């Protein structure tokens, strides 16, 4: 009745092929740290369409997915190029429907965190003291308010997030597919546990995790696939492996500002490369050092 349901060790191409389908609801989580950039690129390369993408802090990789036409809906709570400015592809989609209309489901961080935690907990909703006096509930009908059955207080209620597939990047996995994350761990554990399927790209696969006590470990049996992708969070960082490439974040502003320069970049660096390793070589020194 039960098989040993360990994660499959796959190439990233295989994992995206198997677990990310057109029309899927998908979370690529990462809170400025450990952003699954390689996975985002591979989704563009494989030409997925009509995705609903979820993330608290959509940044460059979501800008790329949106600009490349993969996305029909974005569920989020803060969308920007951190420390730099706007996401021009996100703005162009919202403001001008280019390359296609983008539906927004907008939240605040506290609400999304509660919704992910509810998903991981197999609860249909989460509660928070949130959205008090904010206009957000006027535009997001999925934010409701309930009364505490004990005190009568009014609290916000948000429906659980349950993605079809969650993808995260982590520092390492062992050969069985157990995953270890440290540093800014964001909402990654919740995003994986809330999802039907999950892919974890890692900096390296090692014989033994050597995790400290009470570490953030995702056991192999809650992960569908583990893919070794060295530098796979570039231009984000992987604590203990490489630093954030702030220069690339800044350069993205110019690349993404115009449709033409964006499309040329996607053609050249994503569609024109066969995988993340080739991308890193083609994009040059910055990525190569990751």
């Amino acid at each position, binding site marked *: 009745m039960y098989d040993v349901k360990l994660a499959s060790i796959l190439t990233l191409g295989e994992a995206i092929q198997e677990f990310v389908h057109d029309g899927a609801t998908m979370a690529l989580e990462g809170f400025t740290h450990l952003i699954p950039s390689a996975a985002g690129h591979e989704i563009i390369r494989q030409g997925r369409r009509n995705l609903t993408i979820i993330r608290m802090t959509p940044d460059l990789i979501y800008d790329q997915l949106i600009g490349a036409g993969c996305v029909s809906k974005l569920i989020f*709570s803060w969308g920007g190029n951190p*420390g730099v400015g706007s996401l021009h592809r996100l703005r162009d989609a*919202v403001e001008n429907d280019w390359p296609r209309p983008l539906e927004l489901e907008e939240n605040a961080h506290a609400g999304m*965190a509660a919704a992910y935690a509810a998903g991981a907990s197999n609860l249909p909703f989460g509660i928070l003291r949130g959205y008090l006096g904010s206009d*957000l509930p006027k535009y997001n009908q999925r934010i409701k308010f309930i009364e505490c059955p004990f005190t009568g207080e*009014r609290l916000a209620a948000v429906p659980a997030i349950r993605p079809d597939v969650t993808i995260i990047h982590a520092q390492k996995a062992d050969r069985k597919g157990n995953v270890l994350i440290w540093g800014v761990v964001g909402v990654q554990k919740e995003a994986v546990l809330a999802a039907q399927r999950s892919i974890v790209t890692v900096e390296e696969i090692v014989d033994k995790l050597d995790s400290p006590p009470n570490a953030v470990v995702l056991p192999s049996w809650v992960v569908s696939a583990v893919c070794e992708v060295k530098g796979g969070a570039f231009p984000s960082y992987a604590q203990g492996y490489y630093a*954030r490439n702030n220069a690339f974040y800044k*350069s993205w502003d110019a690349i993404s500002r115009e449709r033409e320069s964006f499309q040329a970049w996607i053609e050249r660096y994503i569609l024109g490369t066969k995988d993340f390793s080739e991308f890193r070589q083609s994009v040059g020194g910055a990525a190569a050092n990751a």
Partner: protein
Amino acid sequence: MPDQNGYSADEMMTIAAARKLRNGAVCFVGIGLPSAAANVARLTHAPDVVLIYESGPIATKPSVLPLSIGDGELSETAETVVSIPEMFSYWLQGGRIDVGFLGAAQIDRFANINTTVIGNYRKPKTRLPGAGGAPEIAASSKEVLITLRHNKRAFVQKLDFVTSGGYFNGGNSRELMGLPGRGPTAVITDLGILTPDIQTKELTLTSLHPGVSIQQVIEATGWPLRIAPDVGTTPPPSETELQVLRDLNARTARAHAGQA
């Protein structure tokens, strides 16, 4: 750029904002201007201030300013790093934050702020990054400090979108809505300092930075600004404050040059 005073308006703003953060306060820090001010405070008069960033680091002591809210520098110098759900539930909502330190794209006379959209939400003129942690930082912190540059695009008669609540329509409207914290206690700009009137909660100019005239502030404000009868002058940056801020900015610039 330093002007004829020997310091810039932005430097005055950051230092004036830093001074509002008292030693020992537990501060939930927004990225950008608030982060600069909070770290200047920590490096000058408030060595025991506890800085928390929404990405998870608790009691972080970065040697350079973070570019993103979750830079490695923040987690490496923190006492511990917690998950995002824990940060928002146990620490912010849990009532552990003395001061929420926020920036804003737009602010109104009752210190409500907008970081979501300029123009119509459905068909925006400018789509801004959105709420992030701000609505609950503004609601649950025991008090809120806001810092932003002073001009008519920012200080508006009516917000295009209320992302995070200040005093709503003034008076006791914040209490009636049940927000746990007492709300914004100061708005620190590059021209001066505004504080809410004790009764009406309307923002009132209470301090002018050196060399700034009341008229300048009025002209940079999109509503008829109330001026305190005893409006004071912000003490200029001390040599130490300027040195600390400039060293911090220089270290930060070097660190963020990146690897391109």
